[in-house]
């Protein structure tokens, strides 16, 4: 199981601004190790964010997203105390879901 995400969800005006920091290698599949063998690609492919069960953002990522990915977005209709849930899935089928409360 991968390390937990750090999620912050704050009200900015009438919108909720979500900031997520995920712990992931995001190996591109382009790099070679000391022996010249290619290091296989290992990266997050799908990210989904939900607010009260409704999807507020879904993403498809390639290996070009930086290591330990950061993502920030804003959605309307949230209020303090609401739950924001983020799920990612990587190309090895590993999955992680974390939740934050809107402050």
């Amino acid at each position, binding site marked *: 199981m991968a390390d937990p995400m750090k999620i912050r969800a704050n009200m900015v005006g009438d919108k909720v601004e979500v900031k997520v920091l995920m712990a992931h290698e995001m190996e591109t599949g382009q790099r070679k190790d000391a022996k010249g063998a290619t290091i296989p690609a290992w990266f997050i492919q799908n990210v989904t964010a939900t607010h009260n069960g409704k999807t507020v*953002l*879904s993403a498809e990522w390639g*290996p*070009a*997203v930086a290591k330990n990915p950061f993502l*920030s*977005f804003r959605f309307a209709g949230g209020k303090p105390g609401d739950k924001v849930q983020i799920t990612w899935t990587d190309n090895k089928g590993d999955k992680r879901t974390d939740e934050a409360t809107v402050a």
Partner: protein
Amino acid sequence: MDGGRRSVLKGTGGAAVLGLAMAAGLFRPGSAWAEWNKNAFETKSLNDAVKALGGASATESKEITITSPDIAENGAVVPFTIASKLPNTEAVALLVEKNPNILAANFAIPQGTEPWINTRVKMGQTSNVIALVKTSDGKFHYASKEVKVTLGGCGG
């Protein structure tokens, strides 16, 4: 459209299902993306990426803004903010022209979510970075910006 659809069909099963759903107008960006559009992530040029994402071509738009450093010292982590003022923005993608594969990330923006994304990507070398926006009428629009990279983030 037909040509695009054919090439999608030739791809993996998952991508074909996604392509068909998009062509049939059944695809809702709000629904969970269980599949990953492998074809799109293997493209090398803007035109191919647009086709793999279900469009025909992209037109340049001043309504899309890319905010990033002009010179990135470390190509492994380059921060980008993409914002679209186009009405009915449905999806926003970030492309790096000179990376091994052009498409870096694609975000589906459901109703109620601001067409505003902030994330960090890798850049192998100095390159044009393209923000590609899909509106609900199925059209694609883009804006581009050159970012200079002092130290690449893809090789090794």
